[in-house]
């Protein structure tokens, strides 16, 4: 397309879907320096990393480049393991469009070091779930991982 040519019809616009008259809102989001390394470790090694602020005695999970308390740059990377504590949980009965889910899903906030990861809880039923119980990450097979939160398939209770 040059300076003398213009799209003059919406239907010719490749981001306009005339069949349902929608315009997708899409953009890229950069995970950042710390996010890049966090996801790389998930993907390559099945490890969950945090960064520690020695001054504040806090280990952030997911890893962060800076301490939000004291503003120090963080480069003390710590493998925090793949087992955490169930901080809270809920059963989601609704889909994103507010329709009823055919199968409700268990969602959890999992405490790892001083941070929380939000993820699905699997291999258990609601009767077995208690705040404070240990839960562990179940990773996808290495070949299926793509450097995202979803490289972890879900968390499951640790059977003691």
């Amino acid at each position, binding site marked *: 397309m040059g300076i003398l040519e213009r799209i003059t019809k919406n239907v010719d616009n490749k981001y306009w879907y005339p069949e349902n008259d929608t315009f997708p809102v899409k953009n890229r989001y950069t995970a950042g320096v710390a996010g890049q390394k966090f996801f790389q470790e998930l993907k390559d090694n099945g490890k969950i990393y945090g960064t520690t602020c020695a001054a504040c005695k806090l280990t*952030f999970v997911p890893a962060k480049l800076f301490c939000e308390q004291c503003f120090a740059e963080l480069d003390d990377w710590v493998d925090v393991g793949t087992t955490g504590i169930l901080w*809270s949980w*809920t059963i*989601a009965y609704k889909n*994103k469009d507010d329709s009823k889910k055919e199968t409700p899903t268990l969602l959890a906030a999992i405490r790892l070091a001083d941070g*929380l990861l939000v993820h699905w809880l699997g291999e258990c039923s609601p009767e077995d779930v208690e*705040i404070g119980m240990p839960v562990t990450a179940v990773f996808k097979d290495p070949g299926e991982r793509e450097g*995202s939160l979803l490289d972890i398939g879900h968390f499951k209770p640790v059977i003691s």
Partner: protein
Amino acid sequence: MSKKVAIVGLGYSSFRTTSQDVSYREMIFEAATKCYEDAGGVHPQDIDAFVACSEDFMEGISIADEYVPDQLGAVLKPVQSITGDGLQGLASAAMHVLTGELDLVTLSAFSKASNVLHYANVVSYACDPTYVRPLKENPYFIAGLEMNRYLYETGTTEEQCAMVTAKNKGNALFNPTAAYGAKIDVKDVLQSDPLFSPLKYLDKSQDLDGAIVFLLASEEKAYQYTDKPIWIKGLGWATDTPNLDNRLDGMGDAVYARLAAQKAYEMAGITYPRKEIHFAELDDTFSFKELQHLEALNICSRGEAGKLLEQGVFSKNGDFPVNVSGGSLGVGYLHEANGLQRLMEVVLQLRGEAGKRQLDDVETGLAFAWRGIPTATGAAAVLSSRY
């Protein structure tokens, strides 16, 4: 505060669950017209500056501040738009007056929620793109996580939360602007559809359309516009981390509310809020939020709100009435205008214009707003009819 700022005008459009017949700008125009009439018929040309609260995503437009001036009478005037709740806007508008350079400032907020077809998608876009959004879940699951943690930490029960809904919907029956008034009991709430357990359908407020406009004036000018100025005594606002991963304390406790209230009380010279403040209109987006906020606002101690509620302390006739208007559960959820609905009730009560729900002998009131899921932003305002 070093100088005093008064609320001298109040106007609102009729609140409705849908409003296909008017645009949001026409709705604001209605509220602005009524506000200026309420302030003795002031002409917008005499107003020095305007503060408008809105959120781009909610309006289906972008750069919302460009859509502000005409409906407020603010064309070619200083305009500031706040992407936040109306009470954050109140803080801004008050600061305009506190500069000493501006005597009359308009404040507006609105909700046209019925125009938003997929609100959960909007909220989803406010969640972290790398750590939350990939789950593709309805973001209201965060409310389920927060409620569960709050109940766990404080020993509050689902029944006590249900009682909040019953109280507020009952209060709303006496408020002609309320769309969701009903006489229901705890059982109705407990038996309503589960959404994000323990959160149920009747634990969650429902959308409402409406616009609210206030006029603020300096101490020197206040009595030119009203016989009953309502004085802003204290303001505070705070935002906790936007990241869910850093909300260890913030998942079960409303830390933002604690900090916002501390600042507002300090400014107002309040040491014992439950004694020195006579009633409160505060965020009840979800039933548990009213109890959590009461505790964070230091009206009672942690874990105590549910018990005091059972004793009737927060009822219309109780020692410390809470959400006499009906709150969001009874009136409806006005998005960025929620804070101004709470402020509106405080002003009406302090003026003695609250009709059938008028409280006796109230002089000082508290308004508190939260911006809702997934935010951890709150704003508090202490107001008084006493100079």
